[in-house]
């Protein structure tokens, strides 16, 4: 049995130790906000925070996060109570089809929390591991910039 903290809550997982964290979150904990885009660490759709660091959950076996802190998009806000970052995405057009969005948000969240600068180039570097096929990135960068400025 593996114990971890997910979005501030203690969770237990019983099952194969090498099951991908992505599948454990989605299937066992029913947190389907985290998405799969490639399953090989290239697209960033599955990004979650492990002890505050953005990580591709498709590459992490659940045994590796035993005793650690995992945060997913579900911890950010709800449709009725969007976080400031999510609000900025809504205002600046940072989401289109929405499939890359949870991963983008989570990466951007880490950027915000680590004191990321009010600088589009730095934001582009921070988001470079998250693919988006819809937006052309600019409105995502603007969304994050808006959130940084309001922080």
């Amino acid at each position, binding site marked *: 049995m593996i114990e971890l903290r997910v979005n501030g809550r203690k969770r237990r997982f019983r099952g194969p130790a090498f099951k991908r964290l992505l599948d454990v979150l989605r299937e066992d904990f029913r947190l389907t906000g985290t998405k799969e885009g490639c399953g090989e660490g290239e*697209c960033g759709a599955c990004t979650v925070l492990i002890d505050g660091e953005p990580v591709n959950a498709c590459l992490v076996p659940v045994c590796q996060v035993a005793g650690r802190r995992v945060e*997913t998009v*579900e911890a950010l806000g709800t449709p009725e109570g969007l976080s400031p970052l*999510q609000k900025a995405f809504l205002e600046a*057009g940072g989401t289109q089809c929405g*499939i890359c969005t949870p991963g983008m948000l989570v990466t951007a969240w880490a950027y915000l929390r680590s004191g990321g600068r009010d600088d589009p180039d730095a934001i582009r570097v921070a988001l470079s591991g998250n693919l988006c096929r819809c937006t052309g990135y600019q409105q995502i960068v603007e969304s994050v910039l808006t959130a940084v400025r309001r922080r």
Partner: protein
Amino acid sequence: MRSRRKEGPEKLTGVAKYIDDFRFQDVLHAVTVRATVPRGRIKQIHFDPSFDWTGVVVATADDIPGENTVLLIERDQPVLARDEVRHVEEPLLVLGHPDRAMAYDASKHVRIDYDPLEPVLDPERSSTVFKSFEIQKGDLEAGFAEADAIVEEEYRVPHQEQAYIETNGIAAWEESDGTLVVLGSMQCPYYVHKALLPIFPRDPGKIRVIQAATGGGFGGKEEYPNIIAAHAALLALKAKRPVKLVYDRHEDMRATTKRHPARIRHRTGVRRDGTLVAQDIDVLMDGGAYITLSPVVLSRGILHASGPYECPNVRIRGRVVATNTPPNGAFRGFGAPQTLFAAELHMEKIAKTLGIDSVALRRKNLFRLGSTTATGQVLRESVGARQTLDRALEKSQYSRRKKAAARWNRVRKNPTWRGVGLATVFHGAGFTGSGEIFLKSRAGVRLTPAGDIVVDAASTEIGQGTTSILAQIVAEALDVPYEWIRVETPDTNQVPNSGPTVASRTCMIVGGLLERSADKIKERLAADGVRWPLTRAALRGKNLSITEEFEKPGEIEWDEETYRGDAYGAYGYATLVAEVEVDKLTYEVTIRDVVTAQDVGRAINPLLVEGQILGGTVQGIGYALLENVVFENGAMANAQFTNYVIPTTLDTPPIRVEIVEEPYSRGPFGAKGVGELPMDVPAPAIVAAIHDATGLFLTALPALPEQIEEAFHDRAPRQR
């Protein structure tokens, strides 16, 4: 109005449900077993006896209750191959297991024996022509006789993968009342409905197709979901339990449709001053193994092949042929990015040959009010070509940048070359010619007894903002707050057929129907004595519903036989200026700056329009510089994001967007199509910029460093 995306909050919180997020009781996870050879006769299918097959359900062509055909334009493609395979990855059977890993495992224990047949992999060698078209205007020979110069060139464009981030996926089950339900990622629920009927003959009302949240499509989920839906439904009926069929990235890239590659030849007669007098264009597209939408892609390709320029004598011939690769299909732009790449680069070549400025050359020939297109259509309104050119030149400070680049290039020790290039394109909005008339789309607005205003349309939200735009149009027409409008989920049991969500038609055509419906509702309410500003209380208990059907605009005339007449109601126009930098050592191309001006008629929601333009521009940047589908023995060899590279934040510069508004009288509030136009313009502009930087005239995409290096070796290189 920069109204916020309606379904945004669900997407931003992970609450929005994509197909893989749904859970079903007793579900089987399905896997498709596919051909491994490009062409062959199927001898036998073996199920490895050493594998434990308990719990595995297998469906083959023999389980199909109706016709074994994926209905689209032709009935040439089987749902599951029975005797012969015509491409690698052709589906042969579907199997399912309650455990996804076990299902994958089982699929690896199926072996197929073939009598191999010789595949055709080069479209130039194909003897099967799926479709050909010819457009004729004026007298070509007389035109060439008038010319001072004749400029010829051949251009090539490759496959392109849609690379939506959500892979394809569909779930299917049968309800106790015998309704076959299909739920999934798709652009066109009514296409799926139509395709399922011949395969599963039953009362049309007993097939219900529902769109789940869809993580991008770009054409890649226009026709392919028909096949996945058929597979999932077949297995669900056989197993008598729900089936979920979700592709992994590798399978999605290898098996599903891509943009048609093309070879385009231009032969152009020009006067010394740059006036076009004759254009002879020949287009060859590779359709892959089955017809799918190829005739329509080709049609759109040739209708845009001469570019947004007026020329008195034109011949455009096009054909799309069969090869033994997975079928190609819809991808944003639908044939036009292919032919416009050639058309625009050819303008550069003409300018170079004549020794005149390519902007001046464009300006001389560009469409204006009253121009006649290659099909003989007179452009009577909403022609913003020139405005987009002027605006893009001005905002990019084109001449200043170009001079600065030339100065930079004169400094030998600089590590790069810089160059500035541009392109101007047009794109027909909505379906071609009589397409909309055949579709007879319907959409409506309804007031519920509770006082809700509901939009009924089958148009899907796949990221582009359908839900928001349609709600905005109705809100604006009824003069009520945007928040009051609810847009129904596309579900063939609930909403009328407003046609497919493709071809930049949603805002213009469906939006137009909704505007008319809303106008009628407004009249009825007014007649009932209701006063504005409306209150929700005033709406309660009204129970009104209006559905409008597309009507042929009186003045539009199109002849499908001769390809003469009004190919589209209106065209969008775009110009893009790109500045690039080419590394002298690695030949890597970096984009320094992009400015694009696009005439969309009217931007109903500027935020969403900008989003479409930005996204399309970046897909175009990928097409130009990065995206390279590698084929080996008829199959995609680099079917992963690791080696099929699409642009990241670091491959894309900040892009400046200028919206030009030349309203179209028949679009809602003047709007024309927005979706596809942005995809057409980056590639030719970027390749022109590389030309400006290096002096190399590349004629094929993508412009990878290898290609640039090769071109340097092939031609007398500019001094380093």
